[in-house]
């Protein structure tokens, strides 16, 4: 019988536990395995079909499967199943994995699987001749071959405790934490371990000390045994019997912990489910005595353990039964960036900068304000405040945020006939989803549709900055050959004013500290309306100039306001406001469930000539 794992053992790993898998790969790498020890990951809820890992300095991909069957069938070379599922799923996944002939060794980490299910799992494993390690364990390690998940701890600890190459001790423990401790003691006082198993602290482990010791008896690399048991159960007696019967012959250092139990009230449950003596036989003292009587090297207490291991090891050296070779040159594993960064030993330049919000702490913040302290009405923050925090990184006074909200409400919709809303409806009727429909509406926003806010702000501000008279401004625009953005309405006039504009102006007059640009725009309006009645300051124009007045009053510099205009910040108010309308149109279409829209032919002027044939003309 060989060791539990060989350098060719390959595992299917249930659960995408990136850290544990990476440790296995790192371990394989320093052991100079030919290929990674994990060949497949099973993770039903995983979105991706591969996961990146490092193998030494390079990256490798390990496939992720949704089911055990898929993984086992795709990887007939896998002989181990490492189950890192929670206690709720560990049972069914282990039972499933045992159905596959290629899976010979299974390991289950979950603690808290119901005992009956565990017993069914254990009995099934025995019936099918599978080696089951666990549940409730960190598993096993065969130095130089494979380790399961986290056993052995960090890669630095593995090197320090010589777990990367075979020593001469065969180690079995209940506890996973103490497994590491023992490996450390054995590396200090001996030459490390040849193989080791933590059988787990549950009441019904899949394999017990004797299963592993009998295998190790036949493994010539193992020269002596180290056993760490604990109060509860009778597994140590199997080992005692095996010595009496001569099935085990190698020297053994053994100790059972939990001698304290005799001093404690029977109500104390130790950390391990199995660590409770149900009869005198199961006490640590009784088991230690039985082992001592059978000739085991049993230390008086845990403090004596190192000395006893040292004596046993040195005795074997003296008898020339041990000659472990030291492999000193370990392949280097590059340090993980994340670990190095945590310790402040590396730095790197970032590719992105964010100055408006932060999701790294307990709670995401908008410009430093936690969401919970601005979301609900009693916080005094409205949607206008959220906009100014995220767009301008400032909290504006109430007159300004009220104005912003007024703007949004004013521009939210303008009926189904305007290009954006029409687009939205047509797209929605083509059967597209809400986002696609709304986006087609948004894509229509530009210089001709909705874009006049930007333009109005830009040109009126230019005129004011240049101190052009109203007439001079009109002439300037005329020379440019462009209509004045923000001026003109289809039907409204000075006599029949646009009430939306009226309301905006009244609000600004009542609440803004000053409205210089609005006043300038209204002077211009006087000039334009003298030419044509409907060339009034329209909503776009009013919004555009009032936003500039708002920023002026808030103390923004000319340069800052120009930058806002250039970056499209004014247009943004229209985009945001009108999105509300577009969503309304898209939802309306979904409700109405109208068929695909096809334009009436009689509404199209067809003027199609036969295409001209192009010929190559030699110059």
């Amino acid at each position: 019988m060989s060791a539990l794992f060989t350098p060719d053992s390959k595992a299917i790993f249930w659960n995408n536990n990136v850290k544990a898998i990476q440790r296995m790969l790192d371990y394989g790498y320093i052991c100079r395995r030919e290929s990674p020890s994990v060949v497949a990951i099973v993770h039903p809820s995983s979105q991706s079909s591969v996961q990146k890992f490092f193998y030494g300095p390079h990256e490798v991909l390990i496939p992720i499967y949704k089911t055990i069957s898929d993984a086992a069938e795709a990887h007939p070379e896998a002989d181990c199943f490492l189950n890192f599922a929670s206690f709720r799923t560990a049972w069914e996944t282990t039972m499933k994995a045992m159905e596959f002939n290629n899976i010979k060794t299974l390991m289950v980490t979950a603690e808290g699987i119901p005992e009956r299910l565990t017993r069914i799992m254990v009995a099934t494993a025995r019936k099918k001749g599978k080696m089951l390690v666990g549940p409730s364990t960190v598993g096993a390690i065969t130095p130089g071959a494979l380790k399961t998940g986290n056993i052995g701890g960090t890669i630095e600890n593995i090197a320090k405790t010589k777990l990367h190459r075979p020593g001469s001790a065969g180690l079995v423990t209940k506890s996973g934490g103490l497994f590491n401790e023992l490996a450390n003691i054995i590396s200090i006082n001996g030459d490390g371990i040849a193989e080791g198993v933590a059988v787990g602290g549950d009441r019904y482990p899949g394999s017990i000390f004797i299963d592993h010791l009998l295998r190790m008896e036949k493994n010539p690399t193992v020269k002596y045994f180290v056993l760490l048991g604990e109060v509860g159960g009778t597994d140590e007696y199997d080992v005692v019997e095996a010595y009496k019967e001569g099935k085990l012959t190698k020297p053994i250092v053994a100790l059972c912990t939990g001698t304290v139990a005799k001093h404690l009230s029977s109500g104390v449950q130790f950390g391990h489910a199995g660590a409770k003596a149900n009869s005198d036989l199961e006490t640590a003292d009784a088991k230690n005595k039985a082992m001592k009587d059978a000739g085991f090297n049993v230390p008086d207490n845990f403090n004596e353990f190192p000395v006893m291991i040292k004596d046993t090891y040195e005795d074997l050296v003296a008898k020339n039964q041990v000659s472990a070779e030291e492999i000193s040159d370990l392949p280097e594993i590059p340090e993980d960036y994340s670990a190095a960064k945590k310790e402040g030993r590396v730095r790197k330049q970032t590719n992105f900068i964010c100055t408006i919000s932060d999701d790294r702490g307990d709670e995401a913040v908008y410009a430093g304000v936690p969401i919970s302290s601005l979301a609900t009405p009693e916080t005094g923050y409205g949607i206008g405040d959220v906009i100014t925090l995220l767009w301008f990184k400032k909290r504006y006074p109430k007159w300004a945020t009220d104005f912003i909200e007024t703007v949004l409400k004013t521009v939210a919709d303008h009926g189904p006939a305007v290009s954006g809303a029409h687009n939205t409806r047509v797209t929605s009727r083509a059967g597209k989803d809400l986002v696609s429909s709304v986006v087609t509406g948004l894509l229509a926003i530009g210089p001709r549709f909705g874009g006049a806010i930007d333009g109005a702000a830009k040109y009126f501000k230019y005129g004011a900055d240049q101190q052009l008279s109203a007439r001079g401004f009109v002439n300037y625009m005329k020379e440019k050959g462009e209509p004045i953005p923000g001026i003109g309405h289809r039907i409204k006039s000075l006599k029949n004013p646009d009430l939306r504009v009226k309301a905006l102006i009244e609000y600004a007059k009542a609440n803004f500290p000053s409205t210089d640009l609005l006043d300038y725009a209204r002077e211009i309006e006087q000039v334009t309306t003298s030419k044509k009645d409907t060339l009034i300051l329209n909503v776009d124009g009013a919004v555009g100039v009032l936003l500039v007045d708002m920023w002026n009053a808030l103390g923004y510099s000319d340069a800052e306001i120009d930058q806002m205009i250039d970056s499209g910040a004014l247009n943004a108010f229209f985009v945001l406001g009108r999105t509300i309308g577009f969503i309304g149109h898209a939802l309306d279409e979904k409700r109405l469930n109208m068929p695909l829209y096809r334009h009436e032919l009689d509404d199209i002027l067809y003027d199609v000539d036969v295409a001209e044939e192009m010929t190559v003309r030699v110059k």
Partner: protein
Amino acid sequence: MAQRGILEYDAKSLVTRLWNDYIGDSLICNFRSVLVETEDELDTAAKAQDWLNQPGLVVKPDMLFGKRGKNNLVLYKTTTAGDVSLADAKKWIHEKRINEIALLNGEKGWLRRFIIEPFVPHSIEQEYYISFRSETENDVMAISACGGVDIEENWDTVTEVFIPVLSEDKEAKNLILSQIPDEIQERNAVGTLAVGLYSLFKDLHFAYLELNPFVIEGNTIHLLDMVAKLDDTAGYLMQEEWQGIEFPSGFGRAGLTKEEKFITELDEKSGASLKLTILNPKGVVWTLVAGGGASVVFADTIANTWGANELANYGEYSGNPNTEETYYYTKTVLDLMTREKDDKGRNKILLIGGAIANFTDVASTFKGIIQAMEEYAPKMREIGVQIYVRRGGPNYEIGLRNIKTAAKKLKLPIDVYGPETHMTDIVAIAMEDANA
């Protein structure tokens, strides 16, 4: 998480509630039983349940311990069997609950719960025994025609039936039916009962179920005494079946303290493991040990060096708890530890121990410990606390460095060791310092 005893009352409720599903209506079991803490509660119960007003009651403590008969803790007669009245029962409950009592095995404690049932006249020959327990590979049914208080002495009359854990229902049924002892008169009825109880034992995740004795009269079964343990890890599967059954603390142990309850709740919510048992709040040695295995070794070593009575608490945290969890865990221990000075004027010892962790992040778990230390430093300085640390594992260098720096800043005396020092050496070091 493990096998936990439940009240006799709850066990009987559970079995009788599912009686028709498992045993069927060919046998009848009348569940007449009340559970009370005081005689006044019994009085209240008697207003709703008239049978309590008829003479012929049986009163027993329901405190998870056995051998109640031998301990003279079953009231079934004043002068003749079956003559116990409501007034007698109330008087008896009062007498038994107001004083601490000692059992034959030396355990001492208070009786806090009593179960009251109707007296069932029967002869000793009618008392049968049946129990089910779990072993690794088999469920074991033990059955005897000689049930009753002397079952242990009569163990040679017990037939044990080993039912392999992978048995199909039918195989199990045949095994059970083929081994009902000949001494049992009502073979068919007992067979039906045994087969049904076994299914219930299995399906409901019992770890142990014992009826001793039960009595058959015609087609009526009297469950005179019942003991049961459930496997509490199955709780998530049994929410409906168990109906929120409680796992009370046993005789001799007060209920969980507030602090123990707090940690139990923390543990239930966490993916990590957090355990705390207060052993002696006046003990001088307090532990904050990582790992189910290491915590036992530390407890052993402290008991060997300082004596078990000086061990203030048993506990462990493991499975990579987060910083917040270790903060609350540590805070709980530090709070208990700093409530009063040591009686003998000694410094208290705080052992922050652990093996070389496999995957628990030492730096982040220690961060929580440090936060709690910062909070409790003034109290710790006031009562005098000497700290000893030994730990290894992922990021242990940072963890050890941080705790050392923090303790120095807080003016708390501390000794810090890593994996180069044998795990439990800090116990001896602490002892030497204390004696110096």
